[in-house]
């Protein structure tokens, strides 16, 4: 196994960028469309569920032992996420930033960043997220410019959640937690395999939840429900409506912040896939180049509004399986195996 370690802070920053990455501009519309004024409540409920899942992962991660087939399954899942994300990023950039530039150029340039990072030493992928820390602050500052335009009555009525809202809301909220299984992959590498306290996990989940809930609330209070139904990327429109003295298009700046964020999440997903590959075979430059070439070609077949939407919907089901059920199943299998070994 490759020799590298990471600290708690690195683990949680890695997870935060992985989970927020590409999805943080679209999750608000999805959740609000499904659960309306109750969206933020449902988000908190789903977040609590994922906190429980993280706690389980943390407690039993030692039993998460993947065989070769399972490792390939996870790799395929992560590379599929990357392909879907790249298609989505290009779709958004085409709409908001530069409609003239061919998709293959935009995607190739983004993939080159990932290729360079993944051909570099492990420390690069583990630390690259640090560049986004100031961007998180800038994004929240940009968002806060809309505070004066918020209509607080848009929040009401809330609390009465019917079953349809629960089912749809929970389904759409899952979208924000794609990549949670990375915790299990990275956890064994946390420095000296030391104990990770529940308090640390809860704090991480609180920060992640606050980040999403704040954006959901801003969108909910800024637009009416009818507007949200017809606006696909509400955060973008919210920022486009802001005027500051020296900038006419705040959204354009945000687009590039989001793009950086997304490309880094692509780097992280590729890192996860390649690090699993390296556990089966040795580190291979040829395979790293090949898989990057593949993920730069495949998104070109997905860049239409319908396909982008469909592929994102499918990702949620992927999360149900690879993020929740499959890890629990593998840990259970590992636990039983260890029991058998103890008896022997």
């Amino acid at each position: 196994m490759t020799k590298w370690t990471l600290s708690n802070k690195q683990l949680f920053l890695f997870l935060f960028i992985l989970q927020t990455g590409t999805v943080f501009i679209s999750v608000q519309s999805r959740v609000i469309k499904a659960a309306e004024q109750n969206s933020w409540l449902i988000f908190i409920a789903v977040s609590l569920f994922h906190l429980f899942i993280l706690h389980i992962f943390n407690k039993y991660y030692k039993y998460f032992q993947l065989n070769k087939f399972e490792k390939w399954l996870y790799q395929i899942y992560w590379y599929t996420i990357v392909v879907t994300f790249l298609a989505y990023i290009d779709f958004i950039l085409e709409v908001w930033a530069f409609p003239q530039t061919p998709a293959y150029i935009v995607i190739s340039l983004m993939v080159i960043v990932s290729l360079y990072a993944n051909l570099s030493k492990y420390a690069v992928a583990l630390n690259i997220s640090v560049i986004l820390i100031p961007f998180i602050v800038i994004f929240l500052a940009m968002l806060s410019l809309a505070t004066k335009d918020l209509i607080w009555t848009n929040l009401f009525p809330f609390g009465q959640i019917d079953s349809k809202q629960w089912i749809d809301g929970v389904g759409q909220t899952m979208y924000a937690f794609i990549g949670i299984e990375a915790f299990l992959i990275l956890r064994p590498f946390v420095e000296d395999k030391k104990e990770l306290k529940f308090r640390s996990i809860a704090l991480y989940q609180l920060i992640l939840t606050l980040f999403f809930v704040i954006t959901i609330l801003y969108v909910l209070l800024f637009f009416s429900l009818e507007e949200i139904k017809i606006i696909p990327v509400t955060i973008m429109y919210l920022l486009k409506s802001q005027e500051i003295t020296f900038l006419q298009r705040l959204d354009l700046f945000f687009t590039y912040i989001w793009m950086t964020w997304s490309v880094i999440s692509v780097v992280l997903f590729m890192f996860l896939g390649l690090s699993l590959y390296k556990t089966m075979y040795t580190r291979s430059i040829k395979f790293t180049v090949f898989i990057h070439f593949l993920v730069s070609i495949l998104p070109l077949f997905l860049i239409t509004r319908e396909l982008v939407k469909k592929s994102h919907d499918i990702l949620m089901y992927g999360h149900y399986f690879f993020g929740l059920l499959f890890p629990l199943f593998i840990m259970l299998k590992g636990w039983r195996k260890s029991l058998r070994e103890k008896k022997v």
Partner: protein
Amino acid sequence: MVSYKEIVESLENEFSQAFDFIAKELVWNEEHVILCYYSTMIDTAVVMEQLQTIQRKFEAGEAEYGQTAFSEEMTFTIKQFRESICNGETVIVFPKTDKMIRILLPKIASREPSSPENEYVVRGGHDGFVENLDVNINLIRKKLKSPDLKIEKHTIGAKSNTTVSIIYLTTKVDNEALKVLKARLDRIEAEMIYSSGQLEDYLEDVIWSPFPQFLNTERPDRAVANLVDGKIIIFSDSDPTALIGPITLFTFYESPDDFNGRVLVGSFYRLVRLASFFTAIFLPAFYIAVVSFHFEIMPIDLGEQVKSSVANIPFRPIFEALLLELLIELIREASIRLPSPIGQTIGVVGGLVIGDAIVAAGLASNLMVIVVASTALASFVVPSVEMNTTVRLLRFPFMVLASMFGFFGIVIGSMLLFIHLLNLQSLNRPYLSPIIPFEPTKIKSIFFRLPYYKQVPQQRNFYLFSKKGKKKHD
């Protein structure tokens, strides 16, 4: 044993073409001895005095007649003989007993320590390193009166026999980095080492990186501050530049002025310098991206002004920018090569007259002149010549990317640059520390000049930075 004939042959072969080489046969107590030296590299009076002392002891029949405070007795070898003569020592050869005595008093030409021209400070010492290793060590010892100060000498270069000294504080030094440095010094296989720049090529972690991995300084106060920080100083003889490592990117943005001035003032200028890093690299690229792709980003009034300014320019913004940037580089090169009064005149002529004429001729817009001039100013703010040239070089690829892809190109370029910086190391130590690995508690020392010079050891690897890790390294 080497015969008298062999010695004479060796002298004839190797030194007969040097007019300043002197070889004289003397007779001391009926024994023939040969006195050799370069007349241009000794102080005759001082050497004569030493010679007389040795002769007196020899004639008195003392056992260790060659051992004095400034001389050394040893077995004769052609190799050592050659080296000593080339180092400016005076050698007395005793063919009968196969011995030689080296009088270790070479006279090396050196100027007086004066303020380095490329590292001016407002307050603080105005002495600087010179082309003499002894003087440089003297300047360091003057400021750092500590017995911990260790100086190791290595001889490198088969032909040049260059003395390279590594200086460090035994109680502070990063031992792993020291080991790496020594190993790299031992690996050098070169005929000639004649400058610190050449030495830097052999010692750097990534030679093709645009970023310097050693801090160059001619200031003793800067060198001493780094020694106290646990860094290692490398001197090559006859070069006034001290190479300091391991360093981080942020070391280049620290100036001795920060610590000589007031806390708030020092912190303010540190921030200005750090902002200049981004301005110098990104400003022209940003302007090109806005003018070429993203006009709509500007408020309408400003946008109209910019449009009217660039409307009649016959070139694309990238060519306009390249024209002005190259002009600035020409002015800079010209002003460096010329004596300072003429250099200043060139600056004025280039900056004002040509700049104004270019705008009047409609070859570049007013705004582009402002952008390029601001960029040049920002790049000169860096208190390190190496980083200054790096920053100036880096803006060109960003300008090209901005002209091809707008902000997208700048973002992609920035990410590639960031990954490169993440990969970079100085003597195997992270170059972006304390940003990478992320150590929030140490970050304030990058941006602010703290009220006292607190020594924070540089992070020594990419992975371990828990409390346990810190303790282990501290």
